[in-house]
Every structure is written in C-alpha cells, then in structure tokens.
C-alpha cells in the first residue's frame, strides 16, 4: 500500500515562521514525524511527503489545495495522511482542507490527526477521518501509532467500527445501536436526572437556522417564481410525486395561465386534509394573486414554471438538496424573487 504524507513547513524541516511562506513542495519518502509514522505503519510505504508553509496555505488557499492535489495525483497513492497538527489552528485547517480535497476530488482515502478543538475538525465536516491528539507536540509519541493503526484499517478497506473502537473523532453521522435499556426507561432516567439538576441528552443541541434573505430591492421589475412543498401537481399526478418522503421535486409549466384551475391541479401531500386545497389549487400555489399583482405592475413578471415537492417526512439533508437544486435552476433562469408556499 502506497501513502503520501502532508506536513507544514516546520515539521517538514524547512524552517519555522521564516519559512511559513513556502509554497507546496514535494520531498522524497518520509520526513520528520513521517519517519516515526513509517516505523509504526504495517505494510504501508510513504512514497513522498508534501509540505506547505502555514502562511502560504492561509493566503493562497485555493491555489495551494489545487497544487497539492495535483502533486498527490502524480504519486497515485492508495492513502493520504496529514499531520498530526495538534492544536495548531492554521496547520490543522490546512491538513483538513488538503485531506478533504484529496478524498473528494481523487476518491483517495484520507485521514488527518489533530486536537479535537482544532478548527480543522469543523473544516473537515465529517468528510475525512481525524485521529484525536493532544493539544501540543508532546503528544507526538502517542499520536503516531494511533494514526498508523487507523491508516492500516483504512488501507485494508474494511468497514470501520465506531469512533471509540477505531480511534477517530466522531464525524457527525447518526448510527443506530441497541442500548442497554428501553427508550422509556432511559427517558425516566434522563428526566429524574434533569429534575436533580444534571441535564443530559442523547441528541446534541443545535439546529440549522436559516437567516432570512435581504428584501427584494424592487419587486416591480423582478421576475418572481412560485415554489411549493404543498404537493401541488397536475391532476392525476402524472410523475407520481410521493405523498410523503419525496425523493425529489418536479417543475410544471404555467405558461400564461391566469390561475390554477380547479380539476386541473391537485395536492398529493399526505400531511394535511387537501379537500379545500383541491377546491382551489391557487391556495397551494397562489398564481391568481401574483398574476393580479403582475397586471397591477407591482411584480415585474411571473416565471413560466412552478416547482413542487411534498415537504413532509423529508430529512433535512434531502430538503437542503431540493432547495439547492431548485435555487440553481431559478438563478440560471434570472429569477430574482421566490414565493415559497409551505403547508
């Protein structure tokens, strides 16, 4: 198994702060901590070491990543290892960005090592494996064998166990397992503990709040599109939009129609009583109202296509993808405003 190792200028022996402007550089074989790593690796050879100055990387991030990825491509390794960066923010960030780019662009397995509070962990966003280390270089002796162990597991191509079992930082994926007690018993335990002042949770706090966009500067000249998650489809649901847990979205032409006629559109949404909506589909997609605003000159024009999905039982990740895909199409069509009708 062939590997490439990434280090910053300091650990690659190129110099300290005075060498922090060093551009991406290739060195033969294992260098610096790479020698200790090579000694700990089993049947994995470090072909080359790539190094980049911390300042250079920070100031020319995109270019540095491109050049480093190109250098990896020449070596054609099976595995890329970065760091350990310990608590060094710039170095850890570079390790994570580099390893993530190698993984995403070349499809080569990549892992890094750093302290769990290093900003590189957030930059990795779960896309690479990160071995946790001490906050400073005193943890080198401990870090290298653990990096080697995880590298071995990755190189073997076997399915990895849990973060605890394999020695990497949790990446943020929620995986099922069987607990010792039922959910009901765990809930009682959690509630009694909370009443006693010890609050714990099996689901981490936090939620993706979307800030509202800036107001449209001038609606009277804007092209406005209608988007809905109300499950509004042409009568008969020709494309079989699911009533719940949609896997995608559809677009339908509205041309120059003045309203969505009763009997020509319906809602297939499985999360609410659609009787009233089907009596007047404009209450799902308010074409009648925006047309009158268009005729009154308060809206520039109505986009000739509306976008629809069912928004119930849809994981946040899927919804985010729908939104991104629809927004890209609308942006390419020159749409400046969107009226999103939810249910």
């Amino acid at each position, binding site marked *: 198994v062939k590997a490439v190792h990434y280090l910053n200028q300091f650990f690659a022996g190129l110099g300290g702060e005075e060498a922090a402007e060093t551009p991406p550089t290739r060195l033969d074989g294992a260098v610096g901590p790479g020698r200790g790593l090579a000694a700990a690796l089993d049947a994995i050879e470090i072909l080359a070491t790539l190094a980049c100055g911390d300042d250079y990387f920070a100031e020319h991030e995109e270019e540095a990543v491109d050049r480093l990825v190109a250098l990896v491509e020449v070596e054609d390794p099976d595995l890329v290892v970065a760091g350990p960066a310990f608590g060094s923010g710039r170095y850890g960030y570079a390790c994570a960005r580099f390893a993530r780019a190698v993984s995403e662009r070349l499809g080569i397995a990549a892992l890094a090592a750093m302290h769990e509070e290093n900003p590189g962990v957030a930059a990795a*966003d*779960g896309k690479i494996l990160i071995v946790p280390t001490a906050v400073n270089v005193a943890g080198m002796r401990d870090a290298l064998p653990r990096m080697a162990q995880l590298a071995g597991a990755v190189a073997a191509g076997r399915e990895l166990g*849990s*973060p605890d079992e394999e020695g990497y930082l*949790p*990446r*943020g*994926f*929620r*995986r*099922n*397992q*069987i*607990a*010792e*007690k*039922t*959910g*009901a*018993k*765990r*809930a*009682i335990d*959690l*509630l*009694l*503990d*909370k*009443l006693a002042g010890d*609050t*714990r*949770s*099996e*689901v*981490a*706090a*936090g*939620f*993706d709040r979307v800030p509202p966009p800036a107001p449209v500067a001038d609606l009277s000249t804007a092209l406005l599109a209608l988007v809905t998650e109300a499950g509004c489809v042409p009568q008969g649901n020709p494309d079989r939009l699911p009533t719940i847990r949609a896997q995608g979205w559809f677009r339908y032409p509205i041309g120059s129609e003045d309203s969505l006629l009763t009997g020509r559109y319906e809602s297939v949404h499985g*999360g*609410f*009583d659609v009787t009233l909506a089907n009596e007047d589909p404009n209450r799902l997609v308010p074409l009648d109202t925006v047309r009158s605003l268009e005729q009154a000159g308060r809206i520039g024009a109505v986009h000739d296509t509306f976008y629809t999905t069912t*928004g*119930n*039982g*849809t*994981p*946040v*990740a*899927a919804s*985010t993808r729908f939104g991104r895909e629809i927004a890209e199409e609308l942006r390419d069509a020159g749409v400046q405003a969107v009226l999103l009708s939810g249910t």
Partner: protein
Amino acid sequence: MRGYEQTADDKQRAAEAAADEAARLGADGVIVTTDAGGNSHTDVMLTVRASERAGMRATVIVAEMADPDSTNPGLTDWVAEADSIVSAGNAEELVPAWVPERVLGGETLLDGTPARAAGPVPVRNYLGATNQMGQLALTATTW
C-alpha cells in the same frame, strides 16, 4: 403530540393546553412523545417549551431523521429547552439488503420487479422499529 394541528396558532394552543393539563396534575416533570416525524417535531418542541415555561422539566423521546451520510440535524425543529432528548434511533439509516427465504403474497411486484430482489431500505420501513413511545432499546449515537 402529533402534527395534526394545521396552523401555528393551533400548534401553540395544543402545546400550552398539554402543559396546562400536566401542571394541573401537579407534575414536576413531563415526558413528551409523538408517533410521527417532521411536522410533529414542531408540536413536540412547542410542548417542551410550554412545559418548561410552566415550571416543569421536560424530556423528549423522538426518532431522528438524519441522512446516514451527512452531518445534518435529524430533527426538523428544535428549541433551546429541549436539552434532554432520548433518541429512539435514526429512522433514515439504511438496513443492508437481504434476501428472504420465502416470499408471501406473490413472486412479482406490480412493476415486474421480483419480490425477492430487495435492496437496502431505511429503518423507517420496518414498522415500529423506531418506537417513539420508548418500548424498544434502539438508540442512535454519533459516528
């Protein structure tokens, strides 16, 4: 709590009514459960908030809906008071494909697919696997 309330006002009213009822019983703590997902997460969260504001402590049992390959929130709503949550498992995790020894009800699906040719399916397709009343021991942890 289930997301049957259609408007924000009704959701708020139902949450406060549930909290009032618990307070009237003299409860110090409440466990909020639901039998659905998505929309229901809002009802759950509003009920947690209403209960906490009424002076009770609240714990939740809920199944997560987190894409197994993304670092995304598994709940579609959340409030800061929901700091004590039991996970009844991640309903979106894929169960690897397996081939049944015997298929009941016919060998072929309506679209022509062999009934035996199952692929990976999400846990939610196993009815009741992520039981939100807390009857099972399934949970989810962060990998």
